[in-house]
Structure formats: structure tokens, C-alpha cells
């Protein structure tokens, strides 16, 4: 087993800036920096985490505990203030599926665009295209503009692209509430398949029942600190005792 994700002494502070205008910033500077133009907020504090290849890990915590921020550091969307994050192999996020979708393009064009955004090559998308469409159950609507899709169709297609990207590490953020029940079951089955194939999974969800079915290990965050790291059932119990 080798390390897939290594997080060391990760610190992240957010600046809650109240202004976005140059004028106000200059006024603040020339008036002797009176008052607070910005407030700082510690989103992650000295977080250490090591995830082995093939592990299925749930990041748990109440709202604002820093789990999504941690996920964004692993995906590279955010960079740490101090400490380090390192990953092995390709990392792809099912973070808010459909972020790269465009309403004015057809389903087919969106599959290509979103696939490329998630790091697939043209040949890979060509090869997976039929499988993506089949999984999404979009069928004949694939050449219709996405703006005419129902929200369920939209999410199904987006999810389908994401699970076909075949990365080594999968980041999943609150997207399991996709589509109707049969489709949800299908997604879940697909995620379990991925984990059985030795993919590393990091899941953020408030659905504790669901994560305990997918994940073996749970990491509980509270105000940006890791307060528990262990078996998923203990982690869920720990989180429930917080409220």
C-alpha cells in the first residue's frame, strides 16, 4: 500500500473582505488603516491526514467545520497558507457535478466539454461516450440542449461523465442525492465498484447512513481541527455526540 493523499500541518485562513472596490481600499490605507477592512477566519488548523491507496474515507462534521475546504485543497482548487498537501496519481472531483456544464450546448457537447475539464483526453471520451450516455439514461435527448433537461436528467448526465473519468483518487462532495431512487442506487453501486477496483475515495456528506455504507474510515472535523480519525461507525457516533 502506498500513500494516495498526504496532508501535513495544513493551515488555511480566509479573509472575509467587506469591500471589492479599489477606492475603499485606498481610503482605508490613507486614513491610517483605521478599523478592520477584513476579518480573518481559521478554516483549517494544523490538519494532518494520511490516506492510503484504496481507502474509502468520509470527512464528517457540522456545517462550517472545514470539510469542503479540505476537499478543495486535495483537488488543488485551493492552496494552503502553510503546511503541505500532496497527492499521487490523477485526482478528480465529483464536486458539485455539472459545474462545467453550459446550458446552451447539447448534451453531447457538454459531455465532451465536461470530460475535458475533468481531465479526460479526446480519445478517452470517444471511447467512453456510449457508456456515459447509457449510464445517464438520457437516451435520445443527448443531442438536445441541456437547458431543456429536467434537473434530474442534468444531474444524471453530469454524474455519469464524472464517474467515467477514471482517476486514481475520487473526491465526492454531497452529490449522492442525485436523481430518483433507482438512479441513486445505481450511483452507489458504481461508487462501490470503483472502491472495489482499488480507487481511493474521499466523501463529504451529511447523510451519515449513506457514508457508513460506502466508507470504512471516518475523519471528524470541528472548527477546522481533526477531532476524530478512526472506524466509520465510531466516527459517526462521535459526530452524533457533538449535537
Amino acid at each position, binding site marked *: 500500500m502506498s500513500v494516495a493523499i498526504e496532508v501535513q500541518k495544513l493551515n488555511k485562513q480566509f479573509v472575509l473582505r467587506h469591500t471589492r472596490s479599489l*477606492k475603499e481600499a485606498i481610503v482605508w490605507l490613507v486614513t491610517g488603516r483605521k478599523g478592520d477592512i477584513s476579518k480573518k477566519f481559521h478554516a483549517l488548523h494544523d490538519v494532518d491526514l494520511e490516506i492510503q491507496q484504496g481507502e474509502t474515507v468520509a470527512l464528517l462534521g457540522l456545517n462550517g467545520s472545514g470539510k469542503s475546504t479540505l476537499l478543495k485543497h486535495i483537488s488543488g482548487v485551493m492552496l494552503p497558507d502553510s503546511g503541505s498537501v*500532496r497527492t499521487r496519481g490523477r485526482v478528480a472531483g465529483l464536486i458539485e457535478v455539472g459545474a462545467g456544464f453550459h446550458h446552451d450546448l447539447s448534451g453531447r457537447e457538454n459531455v465532451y466539454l465536461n470530460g475535458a475539464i475533468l481531465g479526460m483526453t479526446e480519445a478517452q471520451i470517444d471511447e467512453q461516450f456510449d457508456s456515459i450516455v447509457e449510464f445517464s439514461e438520457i437516451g435520445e435527448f443527448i443531442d438536445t440542449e441541456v437547458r431543456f433537461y429536467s434537473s434530474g436528467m442534468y444531474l444524471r448526465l453530469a454524474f455519469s461523465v464524472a464517474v467515467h473519468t477514471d482517476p486514481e483518487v475520487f473526491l465526492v462532495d454531497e452529490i449522492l442525492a442525485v436523481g430518483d431512487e433507482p438512479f441513486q442506487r445505481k450511483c452507489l453501486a458504481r461508487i462501490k465498484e470503483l472502491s472495489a477496483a482499488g480507487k481511493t475515495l474521499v466523501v463529504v456528506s451529511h447523510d451519515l447512513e449513506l457514508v457508513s455504507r460506502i466508507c470504512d474510515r471516518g475523519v471528524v472535523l470541528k472548527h477546522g481541527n481533526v477531532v476524530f480519525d478512526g472506524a466509520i461507525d465510531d466516527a459517526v457516533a462521535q459526530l452524533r455526540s457533538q449535537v
Partner: protein
Amino acid sequence: MTTASDFSETAPLVRPGVGGGLADVFRQRFLLKLLVRKELQIRYKGSVLGLLWSYVKPGVQFLVFYIALGVFLGLEKSARNPDGLANYAVYLFSGIVLINFFTEALSNAARSIVGNGGLIKKIYLPRELFPVASVWVSAVHFIPQLIVLVVACLFAGWHPSLLQLVAAVAGFVIVAMLATGLGLLFGSANVYFRDSENIVDMLLMVATWTSPIMYSWTMVQSKLGASWYALYQVNPITIGVEAFHYAFWLPTTDETAPMPPNLLPLWIPVGIVVSLAVLVLGQWAFRRLEGRFAQEL
């Protein structure tokens, strides 16, 4: 053990989110192509005239300038006005197509990061893609205008030399690099201060008049004197526009009109160097600022 995990065991641990800048854009050509195609597809979505707007807008702009400046202000050479510019219409249009390209490229590139904020906040990808795609889209829109220009030139008896055509390419490259560099700079600054967009709008208004698009460079030289004129001439847009005049307008005249001295041996290389420096500066600033895009957007 699957081959995929075999591969990843040999793959090194890397820091996510640290890219190679513009070099990554080159590596992601397929994604760049798709982004450009998307922009081109949705640009005129829902408009009746569609792509025709790419001809109508510069056409009207040209007509207004031609009548106001060429006829009313007397820049056009005619029997009553022998000091004017011969073939002023071609002179004007060859400058307008280039400045239009620059205006569209820079103003879209400067807005591209904030405009694609939804994506940048959620998925890591080389963010330079967005300004570069904006410039690329503008280059595609530049093509129909260029065709109109070439047709107009042919009617006016255009017979360019190879050197003149090379100068046109050089002029375009100079302006494209400048637009990309400034686009990276203002696009990343725009994330922090939305004033950046307004600065760009103002800059573009100034840029239209600080290059010899509507008037002749000799007017500037006679008013400014040699040293200030040299400063005027360092502007890469000025050099690009003059290269276009040299390539498209000059061969339609009797070639007696004076061109800026040392355009080919001195100023075009200067333009390339200045634009390249702006591009490097833009990339540097972009990389300094991009680390916090996700949280600032």
C-alpha cells in the same frame, strides 16, 4: 492489482493545484479547443442576425469614422485636399480591424476569470485557459474582418510583397501577445478588485487614439518632436497598426507616402520585445494571484 494502481504506485506524490502556467494551456489543447468552440457557439445565441453581427458592427463603425474623419475633417486625399491620405478608407479599415481584435480580446480576457468563477471555484484546471481562449475567440472573429479588408484592398489594386505580408503577421502577433499579457494581468486583478474591468475599458478607449488608426503618424511626429514621438512609437499597438498599414494600405497606393523610419529593422523587433515582456509580466502576476482565486471569487 490493476494496471492503474501499478501506475499510481510509481507516480510521485505531487502538490495539487500547482500548474505550469501557459505551458499547461499548450498541453490542454483539446480543452482549449472545446472552450473556444463553446464561446463561438453561444456568442450570438438567440440573436436574429447571428454571426452577421461580426460584420455589421465593424461595418457601421467604419462608415461613421470614414464620414466624420475622412470627409468632414478632411483626412481623405481628394482634388480639393491634396495633403490628405490616399485611399483613406483602406488606411482606416486596416487599423480598425486590428484595434477591434485587440479591444475584444483584452476586454473579454479581463472578464474571463470572474466570468468562469463558478468553474474555477470547484475544479482545478489551468486557469490561464480562460484568458487564452478569449484571445483565441477574438482571433476567430478577426478572420471575417480580415477577409473584408483583403477584398477591399484587392479592389484598390493591392499588390503586396512577401515582406509586407510577413510584416502583417508580425503586427498581428505583437498585438495578440500584448492582449494575452494584459488579459492575464487584468483578468487576475479583476478577481480582487472589480475596478480592473473599468480600467481596461478606459485603457481601450485611450488605445484607439494613441495609435495612428484614424490619423497619420506624421501628424504626431510634427506636434510631439523626435523624443516624445519615440515614446509614442514604442507602443506595440502603434507598431502593429503601422505594420498593417505597411502591408495592406501602402501597396494600394503609389507607395510614395512616408512610412515611419526603421519600421522593419527597429520597431517591429521592439514591438515583439515589449509585447513579450508584457506577456511575461502578465503570466508572473497571474501566478502570484491565482492561488487565492477560489476563495476570492
